């Protein structure tokens, strides 16, 4: 199952660090700051404040050993399909990031529109020190169709 591979405990500390950096660098070049992205990030920021902030915190640092940080992790910067899937299906499993484990369940956010999920993820992928490519509504739509 897809989620299991996302949350698999086999992800070594060094691997996740490297993955985060590599994605951040390459994606940073690809992204630039186009007007479209800026608008999406601005909309995503509002959604983040209303929906995500309580658990993941204003600075994206999460809550130690409860709610995962969103800063330079492969979960955020890596495979877009896995990231979109976490939002649509939620996550109820141990997550390992840099040797720490995070266990609080995340509720599914499937009630959000494709554009809203794209916006909030684009915001997260370009905040808290993250730099990664935008996520487009069409990408969310494709993942949603697949997991239904």
């Amino acid at each position, binding site marked *: 199952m897809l989620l299991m591979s996302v949350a698999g*405990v086999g992800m070594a500390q060094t691997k996740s660090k490297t993955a985060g950096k590599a994605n951040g660098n390459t994606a940073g070049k690809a992204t630039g700051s186009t007007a479209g992205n800026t608008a999406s990030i601005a909309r995503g920021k509002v959604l983040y*404040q*209303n*929906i995500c*902030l*309580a*658990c993941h*915190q*204003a*600075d994206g*640092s*999460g*809550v*130690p*050993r*409860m*709610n995962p*940080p969103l800063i330079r992790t492969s979960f955020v910067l890596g495979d877009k399909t896995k990231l979109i899937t976490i939002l649509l299906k939620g996550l*109820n*499993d*141990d997550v*390992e990031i840099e*040797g*720490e*484990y995070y*266990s*609080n*369940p995340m*509720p*599914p956010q499937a009630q959000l529109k494709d554009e809203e999920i794209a916006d909030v993820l684009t915001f997260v992928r370009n905040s808290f020190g993250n730099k990664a490519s935008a996520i487009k509504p069409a990408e969310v739509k494709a993942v949603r169709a697949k997991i239904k």
Partner: protein
Amino acid sequence: MNKAFTLATVALTSLLTSFGPGVPGTTVTPDADNAGLKLPSGFGALVATEGLGHARHLTVTPEGDLYVKVEGTRNKGNTIWYLQDTNGDGKIDNKTSFFKYDGTGIEVKGNYLYASSNTDVYRFKLNNKHQVMDTSKAEVIVTGLINRHQHEAKAFKLDNDGNLYVNIGAYSNSCQTKDRTKGSLGMQPCPVLDSAGGIWQFKADKLNQTYGDGVRYATGLRNVVGLDWNTQLNQLFVMQHGRDQLHDLFPDIYDEKQSAELPAECMYALHKGSDCGWPYIYYDQFQHKKILAPEYGGDGKKTGGDHIQDPAAAYPGHMAPNDMLFYTGNMFPEKYRNGAFIAFHGSWNRAPEPQKGYFVVFQPFKDGKPAGDWEVFAEGFAGPGEIKSPGQAQHRPCGLAQGPDGSLYVSDDVKGTVYRIIYKK
């Protein structure tokens, strides 16, 4: 971090073990900076040891040795530290580790050391110096308790009549049909309460017990990490972690400021059959009322749960009481005797408002009841400045224990520091 769990290879200088902390005439002195803590006049603190990992609860033997329970290794590293101060200067100079299961609870009772994982309670036989005789031989006392990634720590306490009281935290925030989902209403009745959301009583000396062998001693408690047996009253006291996210889930009823303050973190004096009301009601410390939860038709004002027990005391929301300890020592001034220390781990569910807690408070008691306002006893764990998110805290107080000399020990689950607070007279 596994490095921290590598078995310490400090040579045991057995010749020195005749001295120990708590022995009259030893010279335990506070650190020059009181270990970074701010304390009432006359008190001092020292770092007894640090770098233990995510140190949760701790317990002190009659000899003054410590056992500290650690979590967060996912069973990859050792999770119980045995700590000795062999020369009596207050600093731990001998440490060994054993046990493989994450968890929070630990207590020395009689000739046994009890420790919990997130599903089980184990015990080890102790010798006449309260040292574990065989660290590879853990007896299973309770097994198969529910663990669904939320409130999974099985904090526990023993009484003096051979009973064990185990918290089984609710695997839910507020028993919504869809957990932590905006607007989702509460399940009626809440099915979580059948196997969690309360304190279960087991026998302390019977092996392999599970739900069917235990008694649901108290229900309607969302999650309890801090609890203590009051030997003066012969009664179990618990601190509940109140529900989260009133604003996120019901923004039409609660604004962010109300959601940061509500509901109260409550102390309950339990008896067999206590019902503290989760998830149907919560306690509002401003209205001094039990308020119907929004998941069950509440609007922030409607009261509910007339049959529900009132809290013994109420504290600001989300501060996360992770341990409580009735002080019975002789070292501290008289006002502290039989009152309660409470370690507030510190909030996260106040964002975007500033966080709160990250300190140890003292709750005065008189005639077996909280009497007078609580006061901050030890602060400064988190470091300077306002805490906006819990990751900024340098240390977070988690466990409390009393030494044989009356010292108060406080564990920190960020860096694994053990503080020892003493009164200088």
